[in-house]
């Protein structure tokens, strides 16, 4: 019963997803799905950032960096050509474990690279590891100082991908292969795979939502909210505040890397634009617009705003638009645009009326 109540919004959201798909298919406008799918992968970053900012109360201006780490790791590992190494012992070992992907490029030349699954797992692990190394010193900082330190991290990642030939410099990495998930499903940006990918993207988002909702409603979620409100009081109850902040930072980095990796396979491409600091600012704005400690608000805003942006509604002024939105939100709705009603409160009220 309790589980049904908790997952009610998830079920409602899933129903809405199906309705939108049917409407788009009926109107023969499935091309909108492309932007919805990309928005969904950006939403993964936003959901993680919402846990970090809204619940644990720690700002980050470096999450585009984690998305880029996920995307570039996947891209590099699935596009590198291992042909010269076919005779080595580790290649035969990888082959035995099905960790390799063989395909032919545009010119029908053979390419052997790592499989997307292996790349995906390594991307998440790498993002988590980097988050750990960055977070250990940086999360001792508070407020503006933490925001600035994470901003510095974002700048470093941006400059690294822009400067390294390994990451394609300004050209980025293209010809990233589709991601075969198994069961006949694949993350693939070509038109015939549109509806399939629409559901894959939403499965990822709603899966992340379920994990996040469970987390914030658990002992850990309570401890995070305590840290947000008073670190000193949280410590006095035995909460290891630094460790909890660090774990949340790592978790949000892993979410961002997952979004980046899936987005890269979907687009078949990743460029240095994904690592730009303005992208980090954008994610932060979306969390603020969604209402900080409001996972549903953040997720919905991530979809809506990114969709409008990718459709080109804001033209070339997209960063300016996000700046204006941030100023307006801070002035007029610091609690966020969507104050979603608390389900528990509504339920209690409805039940109370039934008893009376």
């Amino acid at each position, binding site marked *: 019963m309790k*589980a049904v109540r908790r997952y009610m919004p998830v079920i409602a959201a899933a129903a809405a997803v199906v309705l939108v798909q049917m409407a788009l298919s009926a109107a023969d406008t499935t091309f909108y799905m492309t932007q919805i799918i990309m928005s969904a992968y950006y939403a993964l970053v936003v959901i993680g950032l919402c846990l970090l900012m809204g619940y644990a109360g720690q700002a980050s201006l470096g999450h585009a960096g984690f998305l880029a780490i996920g995307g570039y790791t996947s891209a590099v590992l699935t596009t590198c050509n291992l042909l010269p190494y076919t005779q080595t012992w580790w290649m035969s070992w990888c082959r035995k474990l099905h960790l390799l992907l063989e395909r032919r490029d545009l010119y029908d030349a053979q390419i052997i690279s790592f499989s997307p699954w292996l790349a995906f797992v390594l991307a998440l692990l790498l993002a988590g590891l980097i988050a750990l190394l960055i977070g250990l010193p940086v999360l001792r900082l508070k407020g503006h100082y933490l925001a600035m330190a994470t901003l510095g991290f974002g700048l470093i990642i941006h400059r690294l991908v822009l400067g390294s030939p390994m990451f394609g410099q300004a050209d980025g990495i293209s010809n990233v292969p589709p991601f075969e998930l198994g069961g006949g499903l694949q993350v693939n940006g070509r038109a015939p795979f549109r509806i399939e990918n629409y559901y894959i993207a939403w499965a990822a988002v709603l899966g992340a939502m379920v*994990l*996040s909702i*469970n*987390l914030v409603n*658990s*002992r*850990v*979620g*309570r*401890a995070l*909210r*305590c840290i947000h*409100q*008073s670190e*000193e*009081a*949280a*410590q*006095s*109850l*035995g*909460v*290891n*505040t630094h460790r909890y902040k660090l*774990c949340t930072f790592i*978790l949000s980095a892993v979410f961002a890397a997952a979004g980046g990796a899936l987005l890269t396979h979907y687009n078949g491409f990743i460029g240095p634009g994904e690592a730009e600091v303005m992208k980090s600012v954008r994610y932060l704005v979306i969390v603020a617009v969604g209402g900080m400690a409001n996972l549903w608000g953040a997720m919905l805003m991530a979809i809506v705003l990114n969709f409008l942006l990718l459709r080109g509604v804001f033209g070339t002024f997209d960063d300016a638009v996000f700046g204006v939105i941030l100023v307006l939100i801070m002035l007029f709705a610091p609690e966020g645009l969507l104050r979603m009603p608390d389900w528990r409160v509504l339920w209690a009220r409805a039940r109370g009326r039934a008893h009376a």
Partner: protein
Amino acid sequence: MPEALLETRRLCRSFGGLQAVRDVSLKVQRGAIKGVIGPNGAGKTTLFNLIAGTIAPHAGQVLFRGRDITGFAPFAIAAMGIARTFQTTRLFGHMTVLENVMAGRHTRTRSGFIAGMLQLPAIHREEQQSRQRALDVLEDLGLVAHAGEVASNLSFGRQRLAEFARALATEPTLLLLDEPAAGLNIHETEALAKIILKIRDRGITCLVVEHDMSLVMNISDEILVLDQGQTLAEGPPRQIQRDPDVIRIYLGDEPCSAS
């Protein structure tokens, strides 16, 4: 004499040129209520924070159950069974009273990030247990009717009580109370005294740092008087009340002596 539950040995801490606490040694016996009093600026709060781990001493030791806990982080000290309240209450204002008290169960529960995200079955049992324990504590302090209220909406006196409940939910061996009577009227202070005695009767040792004499005199088994960072007197309340040095610092020097 049995080993003291809490002991400080020649604790020192200065801020810039000011020696806030100088060579303070104290012992708190298991099951006792120990009061620490002194005029403003005597170093009471500094001593309290040294024990609670909020600040580290420059010299000296803090021992709990005979174990050296000097320099431990506050969360580690809390995990050892030392709970505290704050001079100005630090409830989690956006959470309900029940959630605040359940947060006090943190050290008595285990589930981490993975278990939380996946809602493993063990979590339900643990949450149920936490909720029940929290409700028990609230019942005990007469706050159960306010369990569902948002903490910041409570009256000042009830907020203090809720903070007590939160500290008790950690099932502490030692409870540190930082000026619990601050801002309370006489009736509320009397009620508070009863609660502290009740807590002691449950076997929880209490250390009460208090500016106000009356509360401490009524409930303490032993009192330590601080003045200018140093121990001025130590003993049972009766003896402290008659101590000429204590009378001097609280009432001032004899009116005609020096001018």
